[in-house]
């Protein structure tokens, strides 16, 4: 075997960035003349909640196969704005970098999407004058591109998105499920709680609760949760309610879910703009879920009114 190459990564691609970044390497390659050698990146920054936001420009050296994550890694590693000023690295969320964890949602050229699957070459094709990065609008900014998406998980709790099993002792296999049912359920189950559907939804508006002076953490959390519970649960949570109401055991608490889905901020808030399904990175049939939940809510309301 070769004595030179002993490892996969160095052998397979030119050493460029480490996992969390790399110094903007000097760049040469003239083989992509159509593309700019540096990319103009504008980032909307905010140092902390409640502070003013401001734009910052960065020039990032172009490399083949870049995505927005690698752009941000380079910005973090360089920590200099375009004018040469030393600046703190831009903060952003990411984890898996293969579009299954749902972390890296942000507004890229004005549109909500996952930074990992946003390929730079394609962005530059669409907007030759550079890339604009902003935090999501519908969630409170923590810092720079990092937002607080707690509300999204709270919605999952509101709709009781789980199968109410007795416990974790052995009770044999679960119910038999036809391939058709599985194929129906599986896409809904791939929702990674990224929040794109909520960001693009004109009916979903930001709820930001600020801790008051002297308020205990518990009291603040309670107040924040109560505020969340007045707001729209959003397409993702409606879809999860549909998923679990369709499961043979999950449906045992279907009424409780419908109670939540028709409570304040429930499915009635949907305005049928259908942006959710258009921006969902996993192409989850969210509007189908919403319509199904709408139908179930109709039946449920009739039952509720006439069965008691």
């Amino acid at each position, binding site marked *: 075997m070769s004595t030179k190459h002993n*490892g996969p*990564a160095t052998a397979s691609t030119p050493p460029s960035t480490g996992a969390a970044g790399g110094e903007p390497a000097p760049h040469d390659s003239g083989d992509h003349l159509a593309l700019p050698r540096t990319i103009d990146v504008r980032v909307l920054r905010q140092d902390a909640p409640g502070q003013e936001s401001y734009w910052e420009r960065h020039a990032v050296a172009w490399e083949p196969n870049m995505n927005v994550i690698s752009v941000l890694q380079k910005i973090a590693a360089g920590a200099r704005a375009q004018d040469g000023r030393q600046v703190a690295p831009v903060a952003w969320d990411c984890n898996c970098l293969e579009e299954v964890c749902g972390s890296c949602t942000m507004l890229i050229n004005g549109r909500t999407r996952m930074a990992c699957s946003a390929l730079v070459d394609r962005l530059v094709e669409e907007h030759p004058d550079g890339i604009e990065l902003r935090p999501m609008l519908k969630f409170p900014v923590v810092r720079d591109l990092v937002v607080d998406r707690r509300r999204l998980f709270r919605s999952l709790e509101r709709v009781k998105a789980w199968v109410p099993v007795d416990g974790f002792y052995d009770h044999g296999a679960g119910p038999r499920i036809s391939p058709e049912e599985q194929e129906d359920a599986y896409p809904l189950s791939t929702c990674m709680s990224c929040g794109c559907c909520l960001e693009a939804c004109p009916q979903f508006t930001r709820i930001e609760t600020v801790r008051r002076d002297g308020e205990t953490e518990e009291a603040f959390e309670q107040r924040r949760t109560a505020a969340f519970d007045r707001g729209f649960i959003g397409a993702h949570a409606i879809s999860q309610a549909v998923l679990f109401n369709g499961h043979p055991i999950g449906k045992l608490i279907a009424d409780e879910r419908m109670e939540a889905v028709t409570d304040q901020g429930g499915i009635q808030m949907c305005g049928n703009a259908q942006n959710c399904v258009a921006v969902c990175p996993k192409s989850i049939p969210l509007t189908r879920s919403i319509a199904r939940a709408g139908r179930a809510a109709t039946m449920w309301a009739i039952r509720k009114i006439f069965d008691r």
Partner: protein
Amino acid sequence: MAQPRVLVVGGGLAGLSAAMRLAELGSDVDLMSLVPVKRSHSVCAQGGINSVNALTRQQGDNEWKHLDDTIYGGDFLQHQPPVKEMADWGPRIIDLMDRLGVPFNRTPEGFRDQRRFGGTLYKRTAFAGATTGQQLLYALDEQVRRFEAQGKIRKFEFWDFLSPVLDDSGRCRGAVCQDMVSMQFRTFPADAVIIASGGCGLVYGRSTMSMVCTGSAVSRVYQAGAAYGNGEFIQVHPTAIPGADKLRLMSESARGEGGRVWVPRRPQDARDPRSIPEAERYYFLEERYPKYMNLVPRDIATREIFDVCTTEGLSVEKDRLCVYLDLTHLPREELDRKLHGILEIYEKFQGVDPRDVPMKIFPAVHYSMGGLWVDYQKSASGGLEEGSPRNQQTSVPGLYAIGECDYQYHGANRLGANSLLSCIFSGLFCAPGVIASAGSGKKTAADESQRLFTTALRREEERHEALLTRPGGGENPYQIHLELGELMTRVATVVRRNDQLAPAYEEACQLEERWRRCSLSDTGNWTNQNVVFTKSLGDMFPLAKLILKGALLRDECRGAHFKPDFEMPDIKATDPAAQLAEAELWCDRFEENTRRWLKSTIARHGTDGHPQISYEDIDTSLIPPRPRLYGLVGGETVEEVWKKRARKSAQDKGQEKGVTAGSERS
């Protein structure tokens, strides 16, 4: 005593299953994670989860064979009782996940469908599309949310575990952690602490692992005194998509569903791969391993792909090493049904539809077989004693490790679709023992003197403060990480050589020195990712050093650890008698090597910052070690000789155990 309180660090499959089982058993649980638990790295697992099932059982499969495949695939480097227990629990775990609503793919009649994975001849792998890890994780996340709604589990997301708090007797009493948003420090008194923080892929820079897989929590308990086992055993996955920021996994299920690996016989054949006729394609795995074909164990597949590109120069591209992974002969509709998730990843990140064009893939660092050393209590039947506080306990009492960050289940090489099983198993299984341990302490953590926690807290605050106030203009942590990753990838992945490992260890030490001089570009105290990363980078060095040291000292080939200088030779003779004689010698050498090296590497953090390496004997009471002969020239002769010896040895011992050696290449 009051209800025990347990701190679980990490919210992947292992951490979540431990948390929910602990909650079910009545414990209060604090669940801590660097990211919202639903975003844990387990979501990246694609192919499936192994267990014996009704179908394979009728084809002659049983738990013992699952155990045997796992042990054999792992080159006998793991203690056998925990693996036996895991294999026994397999069917129950799949049933449980099924009940929790995981949308496993189904047969037309409505049963769970299974696919075949590497290292076995049975279709043992249940799967949910090509996002099985994600689906399993979500099911557990949902149950944990259910307990959270009831107040039994408290989540601490975006929190960084900094150090365990040990009392004067050395028992773990809790931890010091930091809120990564407000940067506030806080102590978490606990009756037991479970580390479930996953692998340490970031030590290698780019890998198939997620950005949280820094290994920092593991490194911090290692530095606090916990022993680390088999660090040098790092799995390099044969098939990944090379990328600038990450090497994205292309699941083994692509081969499990019929994907074929090949290269053009003519080096760097520029033709469209689809137009290259069959005769001019080199299906090297199929030719070399007619029994397992494309589904040889991962270490073998990785080495073959690496070898065909480097030694034989048959890489598809000249500047970038890669081979074809071809699915184009399979029906699109079936591909979409079974592999949609991974095909979508390839399509999105490479811009090419793998249903039409063969994928270009190359090996990448993927999994850490090694991890924190953990104990177990063996049962009379050869498995584990459920409820024993020793199960999954590290060398620090009251401190546990489960999932990828323990060293227990996969030996020298992990079989595909066994990791999800080991994560869920270790999480569920350890819970009763953890509770027993929590109750066994003389005092519960709540009564423990405040002194311990105040001291520990202050130490972390000081460390943090020192980092923030370093003078500017020093080293760049991202640059150091880049160099560390390149170093590790170069010397400690597929092929390892002592003449590279020894200097690499020195280089790592130098990088660590440079890290001490690095300065931060962000010195603020609000969501400072710069300081969190720099801390975790510092904690990569102890791991990097124990990996390098372990690899340097282990002069043999075993599983993922391949040192060509110590490779067992092929049988070269052609005359049958000479062949037999050579095989006898081969077996002698094998037995000698087993005596010398069939031991776990145990690293302890020395006061000088260097790992102190010792070796631990392995419990092979269930399945005696035998040569792993995948691909060995003359393997069948060796097998013949070996079987004869094994029979004799069995007669000598007066016991009967199924002993077979698998020979491959004809």
